């Protein structure tokens, strides 16, 4: 049996999304900027897609910009705001961000911006009091990961947004892991920028979205064309735009059922580990509304993450560790370091990310093999 439990890394394109995209690789290949039937038809597809996405996310259609991926969206949000706004020099983020944010902040620091890190607690939640202390008249931007890709923490965005609005600072949300996995209403959240990636919810890789609130001062990252209201040059990827729209529509329409189902699976998973007396630590919040459905970031005593990942792979079970390579050593995940996971557990971590296509039979297979391996390695 092959079991894919790495859905936080990427998801497979759904049949419906694939079917939506296929005509644009064959007969519907026109350039949307061309003034002939093939082009005009595709312009219409883009405009309808933008309208649909705006309805699904609760914003205006001219606030939706298509990009190539979540990392581009995040880079554009952060660098684009900095390039257009010169009067403030503090930028704030957390230490549990995706590298797209952290590296963009590093880049801005090299240009003279002051990077401030707001504390997170042991479950990965932003310390709101600390954020209040950090924001000032000199704060240009706050960038926060809405739902953490490793430990699944879903932030209290409304509270963060209120603090940012009081301080009159821009707020960017990295919502790459959040969209279609937790409710998201842009109007209610009152944020300025939001990054999305298609392949995290059964859309294709190579397409992202950046929401930019109207009247936001932002410079383009990619120059050279009139596309996307002159803010993001490049011939539009019509197939993937149609695909991400369909994926978003599907994901949001089934979100309630999906959340209940995956939370049930995750609880079952932990119950079985408890029954087998496995010594593990659940990193991040407890299963429920503040944790991404299906995300189980677990550290096991006595077996290192890469070895466990390797042994699971040998049995057809595909999972992730949060480890990174730093020159000649494998370093623990920066997220786990930031939330203070003990030395005893930090290198022994596996992220199981259950997805929409995961079945109970697959989970039972994983549990059987996981328990067997851990007991063998004791």
């Amino acid at each position, binding site marked *: 049996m092959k079991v894919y439990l790495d859905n936080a890394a990427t998801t497979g394109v759904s049949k419906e999304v694939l079917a939506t995209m296929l005509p644009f690789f064959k007969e519907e290949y026109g350039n949307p900027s061309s003034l002939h039937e093939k082009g005009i038809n595709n312009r219409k597809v883009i405009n309808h897609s933008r309208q649909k996405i705006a309805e699904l996310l609760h914003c205006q259609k001219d606030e939706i910009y298509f990009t190539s991926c979540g990392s581009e969206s995040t880079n554009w949000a952060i660098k684009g705001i900095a390039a257009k706004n010169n009067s403030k020099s503090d930028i704030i983020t957390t230490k549990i961000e995706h590298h797209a944010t952290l590296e963009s902040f590093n880049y801005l620091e090299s240009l003279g911006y002051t990077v401030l890190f707001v504390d997170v607690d042991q479950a990965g939640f932003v310390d709101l009091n600390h954020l209040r202390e950090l924001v000032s008249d000199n704060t240009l931007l706050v960038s926060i990961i809405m739902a953490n890709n490793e430990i699944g923490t879903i932030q209290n965005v409304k509270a963060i947004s209120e603090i940012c609005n009081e301080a009159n600072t821009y707020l960017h949300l990295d919502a790459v892991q959040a969209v279609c996995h937790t409710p998201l209403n842009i109007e209610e959240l009152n944020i300025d920028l939001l990054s999305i990636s298609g392949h995290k919810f059964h859309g294709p890789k190579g397409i992202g979205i950046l929401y930019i609130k109207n009247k936001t001062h932002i410079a383009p990252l990619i120059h050279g064309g009139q596309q996307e209201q002159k803010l993001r040059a490049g011939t539009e990827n019509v197939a993937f735009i149609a695909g991400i729209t369909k994926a978003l529509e599907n994901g949001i329409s089934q979100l309630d059922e999906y959340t209940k189902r995956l939370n049930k699976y995750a609880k079952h998973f932990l119950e079985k580990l408890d029954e087998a007396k496995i010594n593990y630590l659940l990193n991040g919040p407890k299963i429920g509304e503040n944790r991404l459905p299906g995300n189980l970031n677990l550290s096991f005593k006595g077996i290192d993450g890469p*070895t466990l990942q390797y042994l699971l792979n040998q049995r057809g079970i595909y999972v992730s560790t949060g480890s990174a*390579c730093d020159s000649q050593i494998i370093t623990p995940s920066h997220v786990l370091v930031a939330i203070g996971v003990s030395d005893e557990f930090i290198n022994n971590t596996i992220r199981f990310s259950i997805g929409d296509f995961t079945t109970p039979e697959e989970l039972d297979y994983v549990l059987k093999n996981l328990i067997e391996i851990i007991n063998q*390695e004791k």
Partner: protein
Amino acid sequence: MKEKIVIKKFDTVLYSGNILNIPIKEKVIIEKSIALFGDEDPCIIHISFIAKELVSDLLKLFKETNSNSLKIIDHLAILSFIDFDDFSNITIELVGGK
């Protein structure tokens, strides 16, 4: 992979330690990296994966031969990845499980 490996030439211990840290020829790592990843310059995570692949073959060999001690020269097809120039009279021993 909790087992320990001891590599000896006669009574001299050449290596004793974690099975995942046994000395591997750099050439083999690069060849394997090209075969697995299409990459002649693997990062440490990929090197670590390759080491596990080689060690896994070694463990299978111990199991198949039903022995805890092997002469490397008798199993060069699998064991030539170990980083020694001359395999004559070198034995590899699995300690602490099979």
